[in-house]
């Protein structure tokens, strides 16, 4: 098993922590993992992305040009990474703020309206866990219980009261993701 994933969006959306939770979940399942952020002059409101790899074997390059899965959470990210999904791969996008739909026909495309749902739920900070839920529905690469364990291990104890809301968000994400192509 080898998954090469890019998660891209606005700074502040929780892109990096989403990647960390996935990498941590992989670690808990005994996989090799890498988490590599684009740490350039990004800022709040600018673009942010992270490359996560989960593999049975040793991972060489932490930086990739093409991906099995791209999660794009804003238009600049879709413009940059849609073309870099490998044929047969997966693209997941949130339609909020997007000016167009993905155009690739040789990949699976999923839409998840996580931004709207998070606002509706009154829990905007769980946005990224809705997306993680959607991802795991599209590709169950790690077990949900390990995602929760990873979240518990990476959150400081004072935030552990937020774990149930995050678990709920993940479930919601699994329900609302729609396959379009």
């Amino acid at each position, binding site marked *: 098993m080898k998954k090469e994933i890019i998660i891209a969006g606005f700074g502040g959306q929780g892109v990096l922590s989403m990647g960390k939770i996935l990498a941590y979940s992989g670690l808990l399942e005994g996989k090799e993992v890498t988490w590599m952020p684009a*740490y350039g002059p990004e800022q709040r409101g600018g673009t942010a992305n992270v490359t996560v790899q989960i593999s049975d074997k040793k991972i060489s390059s932490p*930086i990739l*040009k093409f991906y099995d899965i791209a999660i794009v959470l804003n238009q600049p990210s879709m413009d940059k990474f849609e073309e870099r999904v490998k044929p047969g791969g997966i693209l997941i996008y949130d339609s909020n703020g997007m000016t167009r739909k993905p155009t690739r026909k040789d990949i699976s495309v999923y839409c998840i309206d996580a931004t709207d749902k998070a606002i509706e739920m009154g829990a905007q900070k769980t946005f990224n866990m809705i997306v993680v839920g959607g991802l795991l529905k599209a590709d169950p690469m790690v077990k949900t219980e390990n995602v929760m364990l990873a979240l518990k291990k990476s959150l400081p104890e004072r935030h552990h009261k937020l774990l149930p809301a995050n678990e709920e968000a993940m479930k919601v994400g699994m329900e609302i993701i729609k396959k379009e192509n």
Partner: protein
Amino acid sequence: MEEIKLMKGNEAIAHAAIRCGTDGYFGYPITPQSEVMETLMDEAPWNTTGMVVLQAESEVAAINMVYGGAACGKKVMTSSSSPGMSLKQEGVSYIAGAELPCLLVNVMRGGPGLGTIQPSQADYFQTVKGGGHGDYRLITLAPSTVQEMADFVDLGFELAFRYNNPAMILADGIVGQMMEKVVLPPFKPRRTNDEVRKQCPWGTMGKTDDRERNIITSLALEADVMEATNNRLQAKYRIIEEKEVLFEEQNCEDADYVFVAFGSAARLCGNAMDALREQGFKVGLLRPITLWPFPTKRIAELAQKAKGFMSVELSAGQMVEDVRLAVNGKVPVTFHGRMGGNIPSAEEIIEKFKENFNLK
């Protein structure tokens, strides 16, 4: 067994420093290595092991605090990124000249000048050929994984104290910022003052009645005295070159072509090598772990049967000069690199490989 953790290379350096009994860290923040001091401040080791962590007023102050600590035989270190390491070069030369052990960490970013915060390997010359003045050498370790970031702290100190010479961990923004699995080294207590006196009888720990004063200096105005110091240094460097070379090879036994790359560039070459092997090209990878001393002998051996070498670096081509010296004209030595914080993809490396060696 120690728990497997997920952390950044920079964080691993900080944890490893505490665990291997470091006495003092003196630094000044700069991207992409700021997590080293941030992690140390979070961990607050002054409450546990008694390790000093100090944000100096400048890089120049930090390296001179290291000089002072090292003169007392203490296990001291500093970390920075390229422009900050440039500022430290005077101190580095003095420490090397005074023959003191210490650990330096450079998480390189793009230059020259203030440059960019993104990854680079363009401080190879500065580190390996001497960024400060005079005929000195730095024992230079080039980690390519977060695990090596953790492991090389203890190894760096060990080599530094074995040879009374500064050691450098030469990393880059990729290895510093990347998170991977890591098993942290076991806890070693800090040495007691008596242990320090025993290990470093030359240290300025306070004069005792049974000996003359210890003097730490890099100054010798008499030419003959200064030359004697230089001869002693050079003799030591020859021993290090003989004994301390480290490298890692993959697929070199039957290789027609050998990638030579260090640190994160070696990781990029790993993907290119795997893909080229699938296409039927017999490609190997030699990763120097010590950049000085350089694996010259091994490269010369491989040059007896290989058809060509290709150095891949995040620079305009610096280590490639040492590869050429090692190959000594036997077969072509080619190069591909990117600068300014850009990273070559595996696809790009493959394309350049075929172009460089006229292969299809």
